[in-house]
């Protein structure tokens, strides 16, 4: 047993707080937008230059001038604002966005993150990921715990080129949740996914961690 994509997103949604400005990455993090708790005000930022992202448009109402960072058509809300990409990354680098939730290829026990390139394969580019992890005070990574072949993606040290060094605060995988001290204070296991045992988790995790369930 393990968490599915929706369950991982639901766990990530528990990191939201009333009044937060939040940036959501592509993939599972995008699902968090549909899981904002009732009564909580959360403003979503799109790093191409928008605060206050609305839902996808109804068919026929799409507007080529209104897209999110994943290049999907979206809509605006009454409180929406638009700005340049320089202002947008000023918000990000300046620490004004409180929470970034994004995907990963590898995370290590020092809080390093790799999610932008695999040597020898075509590099698409890092987009805004390096700025987000360097500038946002709280960074949550949501990713599968293992490679398709079964190898751990939560490592002692990332082997892929880094997106950021010492940048991850919380790692949510399909098997567990880990708190990481990005200043080098180690890793705590705080939750196991439904039906996952500690022994099963240890068997497929390279990073070392203390147990604080």
């Amino acid at each position, binding site marked *: 047993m393990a968490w599915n994509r929706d369950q991982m997103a639901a766990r990530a949604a528990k990191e939201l707080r009333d009044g937060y400005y939040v940036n959501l990455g592509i993939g599972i993090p995008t699902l968090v937008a549909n899981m904002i708790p009732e009564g909580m005000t959360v403003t979503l930022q799109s790093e191409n230059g928008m605060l206050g992202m609305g839902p996808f448009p109804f068919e026929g109402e*799409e507007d080529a*001038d209104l*897209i999110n960072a994943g290049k999907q058509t979206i809509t605006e809300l009454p409180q929406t604002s*638009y700005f340049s*990409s320089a202002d947008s*990354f000023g918000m990000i680098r300046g620490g004004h966005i409180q929470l970034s939730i994004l995907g990963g290829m590898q995370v290590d026990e020092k809080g390093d993150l790799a999610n932008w390139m695999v040597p020898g394969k075509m590099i*698409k580019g*890092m987009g805004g990921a*390096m700025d987000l992890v360097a500038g946002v005070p709280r960074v949550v990574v949501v990713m599968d715990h293992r490679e398709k072949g079964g190898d751990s993606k939560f490592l002692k040290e990332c082997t892929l080129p880094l997106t950021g060094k010492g940048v991850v605060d919380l790692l949510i995988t399909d098997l567990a949740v880990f708190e990481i001290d990005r200043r080098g204070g180690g890793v705590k296991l705080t939750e196991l996914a439904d039906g996952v045992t500690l022994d099963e988790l240890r068997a497929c995790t390279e990073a070392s961690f203390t147990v604080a369930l």
Partner: protein
Amino acid sequence: MSRKIYPDAASALAGITFDGMTVMSGGFGLSGIPENLIVALRDSGAKNLTVIGNNVGCDHHGMWLVLANNQIKKVLASYVGENKILESRYMSGEIEIEFNPQGTLAERIRAGGAGIPAFYTRTGYGTRVAEGKETRQFPNPDGTLDWYVMETGLVADISLVKAWKADTEGNLVYRKTARNFNPMIATAGRITIAEVEEIVQPGELDPNQIHTPGIFVQRLIKGPSYVKHIERLTTRPRPAAQENN
């Protein structure tokens, strides 16, 4: 007629393009790209271009047209996916790509246009992006130190931007997220050419709502038409219509 207004994209580019020049082009994905000026850049035949922008178009659209016409030597961008020609020419070494974090790219262009030769950012410290660059520590408000990477400002021989409306003086207003990289790119060109959907008389745009002041725009055209291709059309179902009986 204003001295800045040209009849079409080809005449706006006439006499100012040359081989080996650096061109900046606005847009995020295909949103807010100067689509008519890009076609004119292709038709100019200028070669060995260095192209700076967030992306390099995508298959069959935008700056891809210039790429497919073998005019590009080097690219500075943050994301170049969905572009098969670029992929094959990068992997074969025919084209050089300098990957920049998106915020670093935006700030390098902003800095270049504002006369700032370099700045320090935390972005990319400890990654490949920082290799070969000066790094140094600066204090945080709490007295702890963080490492920063020095990045340099960028300027261009020609900047191509797309806005929604302009007045005849070149004051620009952008629309929604089509603004993206356009305002900074407008400031960083030795010659900046803007294309817009509508040109109005001075006084018809609210001076409080100008995004790019006309000082940054040397040449201006009204685009004859806009395709505004959407890369990822994403919609949701309409709620079921209420029966009226």
